[in-house]
């Protein structure tokens, strides 16, 4: 999305992290967007996906939403609200900062989340975006 530049003063490129039990080394943009818009709720091996997010106004969340999903945070929130308040899906689990993000993804089977850097941490797997 071209005019993402309009809103984005953040240069940090978000990395996609998953629980080490999640299969595969990469994920497609379409699949990532389907997961974060709550359309895809299972991994290809049918394990349930547990989605973690930072608060709507967190710079890393803003960068992730715009750069990786091509969606503004407000559009994501609208999608989550419509699906969760109507009982059709659960909104992602919100964590307060990147430390909690890493800890929850490490501890939760099927988890997906993101951090500000593509650097590795013990017990967390990084997925390449294709």
């Amino acid at each position, binding site marked *: *999305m*071209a*005019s993402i530049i*309009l*809103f984005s003063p953040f240069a940090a490129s978000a990395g996609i992290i998953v629980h080490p039990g999640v299969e595969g080394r990469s994920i497609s943009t*379409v699949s990532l967007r*389907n997961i974060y818009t709550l*359309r*895809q*709720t*299972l*991994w*290809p091996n*049918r394990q*349930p996906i*547990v989605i973690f997010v930072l*608060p*709507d*106004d967190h710079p890393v969340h*803003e960068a992730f939403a715009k750069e990786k999903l091509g969606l*503004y*945070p*407000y*559009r994501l*929130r*609208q999608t989550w*609200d*419509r699906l*969760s*308040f*109507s*009982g*059709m899906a*659960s*909104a992602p*689990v919100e964590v307060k900062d990147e430390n909690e993000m890493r800890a929850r993804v490490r501890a*939760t089977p099927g988890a997906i989340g993101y951090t500000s850097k593509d650097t590795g941490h013990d017990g967390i797997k990084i997925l390449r975006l294709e």
Partner: protein
Amino acid sequence: MTASRFSGWNKLLLGGLLTASSAWADAPADSRYHIQGFAAQGLIGSTNNQFFGDSRDTVSTDFTEAGLHGSWQPLDALRLSGQVLYRRAGESDRDGVRLDYAQADWRFYQTDVTRLGLKLGKVKLPYGLYNETRDVPFTRPGILLPQSVYVDNSRDLLLAAPGVFLHGASAQKYGATDFLLGWVRPDFDSESVDYSFLGNVRSGKLKGKGTLGARLRWDTPTDTTLMLTYADARADYAPGSVDALAAGSMRFRNLLATVQQRFDTVTLTAEYGEPRLDLRGFGALPDTHRTIQAAYLQGEWRFHPAWELMLRHDLFYRDKNDKNGRQFQAATGLPAHGMFVRDWTLGLRWDATPSLMLRAEYHRVDGTGWLPGPDNPDFLGREQRWNMWLLQAAYRF
């Protein structure tokens, strides 16, 4: 819905929900359960007519919404969810706290890209883009939904009803599709519904019969949403002890088309429907077969991450073949402007924090076709041209 009718079904479901919620407290803090809620207060001022309370030439504080929503996934394939709602909207809604919905959703077939499920209970009714979360202020495009399509006058019919829906979804290269197909028994028995369909409050009762509901939705890879909603509802009238009306029956059918295109920070939305209303055998009320026309065009512009402007033109004709209401006036002696509404709306939204939203909205209205009856009981006292402003503060947790 009156207090006496907050019984049976509702009590049972509410009881179940509360029992379940006390069990959640012991569950580990993971993603299997979720509780969220909201509270909102509005201020309304208007000229010439009343809207949600005493708003004419003064300020009504009679528009309050609050909700507590819970969902629990005891199994991967089973989701229980429900919402308790408090709503006050002038004389039109004085029911206070009620169970909005309580449903069980069983996903009996699931892969990473497709699913099929069955939801049952007091289920949320699919209708257009906004109906399922119409009482959650954050999910609406404005303080009020476009009244042509989402008529607050008939909201009891559209909210939720005991029944069952088969649903499915698929995410593929050509986009995401989903469908709902179901059978419900909607609630026709309210003063506002009497006003909309029978012209006034009636002493008897409209009893809903089986209603077919279906919705097809396609979200294309180009950020376009296309949707069709169909409903076919029937109700029988049981006259009161002293009643001018006979035991008639009514049928209400509607096919609603939705188009939404999302560009970068701009969202354009249009919905169009031609609901058909048939009344038969009501005695004093002549047999009626009319086609209503309801449509709006709306633009939303997120000009700053926390600010949004909305402009909408909303059209409502109670009879497609008598848009200006002259035939109606000649036949009944009632004002012609009760048969139509043309409404220009300008709205501003500010998400002050992720949990606090403030909104302002201005309506320039020509016609009284969807003016809330209980707030304006004197037909002859209603005026054709009126304006309205609204402010709303909404908090979520």
